[in-house]
């Protein structure tokens, strides 16, 4: 296993523990949730095979679900994001393409690209998650409020982590 692979496994458990032990309790104004674990799937290397990506997403979502007592819910949303991720990355390739061996990070690709990359995917994740949990569109505007405020919260946390992370060479 390469250095990157081992690091990924460590990150997997770090994101999981952070999510279920700390962020699960961190709800702002009763509506803004922080589902930071999505960042794990989003930050994996660009060249990764989409099948592997989905399996990893499935595993992480499943573990998160065990703690949230919502078997299948987070898994569903995360596998969807994992499936869409590579297509979205291909769509928004910057001029000259991606540098090989680099992750889709803020440091490499810049703020504007990073937001274009993360915001739609995180939105899809949250939308799927909250609407399935609400069991339909009965509480449409309240659910929408939850989705948008959580989107802000999650993306803001992801940005902070991007600035904190040491620039890997």
């Amino acid at each position, binding site marked *: 296993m390469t250095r990157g692979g081992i690091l990924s496994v460590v990150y997997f458990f770090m994101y999981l523990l952070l999510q279920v032990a*700390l962020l699960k*309790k961190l709800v702002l104004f009763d509506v803004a949730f922080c589902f930071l674990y999505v960042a794990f799937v989003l930050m994996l290397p660009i060249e990764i095979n989409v099948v592997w990506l989905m399996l990893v997403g499935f595993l992480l979502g*499943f573990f998160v679900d*065990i703690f949230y007592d919502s*078997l*299948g819910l987070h898994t*569903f949303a995360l*596998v969807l994001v994992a499936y869409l991720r590579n297509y979205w990355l291909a769509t928004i390739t910057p001029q000259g393409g991606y540098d090989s061996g680099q992750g889709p990070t803020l440091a490499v690709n810049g703020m504007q690209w990073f937001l274009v990359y993360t915001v739609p995917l995180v939105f899809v994740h949250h939308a799927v998650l909250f609407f*399935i949990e609400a069991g339909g569109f009965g509480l449409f505007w*309240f659910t929408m409020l939850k989705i948008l405020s959580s989107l802000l919260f999650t993306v803001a946390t992801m940005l902070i982590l991007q600035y904190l992370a040491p620039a890997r060479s």
Partner: protein
Amino acid sequence: MERLLNFVYQYRAFFTFLVLQLFCGWLIVENNQYQNTKFFNSSNRLAANIAGFSQGVREYFALRKINVALAEENARLRTRLEQRTQSFYQLDTRELRDPAIINRFEYVSAKVVSNSTHQFKNYITIDKGQADGVQPGMAVISHEGAVGKVKSTSQHFSVLISLLNIDEHVSAMLKRTGHFGTVQWDGLDPRYTQLRFIPRHVNPLPGDTVVTSGYNAIFPPGILVGIVQDVKLKEEAPFYEIKVELAQDFGRLAFVDVVKSNLKAEQDSLETKGEMR
């Protein structure tokens, strides 16, 4: 055949995606079924221990409040017990002599390991399980009021469906008028729930007490659910819309009591016999 396999291989990403999503969909549907004993939820030992550690750290900051609440409850119970003894001094009814009725409800005290209030479907994990006689379907109360129902159990932990769960219905009644309806959360504010199916001719008022009805033999009768906060009656609607302020503040739930209803089997079997006629 070979072309089919080639086709599948070529679109393997999509097919893997499809299989995984179908599996998740099945899990979601399966998880929404009512009571069951399952391994993959927060009642499994590892998950409960991690959640318990996280709760334990947070608990230190609330210790003083929890202590005060428990001490107050002790004092209140002692007063109640004394009043009871005094008032029953000269009575001699069957309710006082039949041990089956006296011991109708047993209580198992449990500590909350994990709790949520902000989702649409909230669950609570507690640290008592099958080893302590907790079974799916039992009611759970606290000293402030009704809390929920046991959904699934493992050896040493249980998962409860909180009253703050849009799928949970509890039979309740207006204490003043005696009319009963169903308490069901609307998913919006964790401090308030809804009392539904109170018919037009009743006159509920803000300030009325809502208690469990005891009609389904799960909750003991007369457990406080909340206080009526707001009453609305729409033109042509058959039932009132009643907003109830919950007696239990779910945000700071620390200790709960699981209610073992010893006569539940008897009452249920009698009621199903009645239905078959």
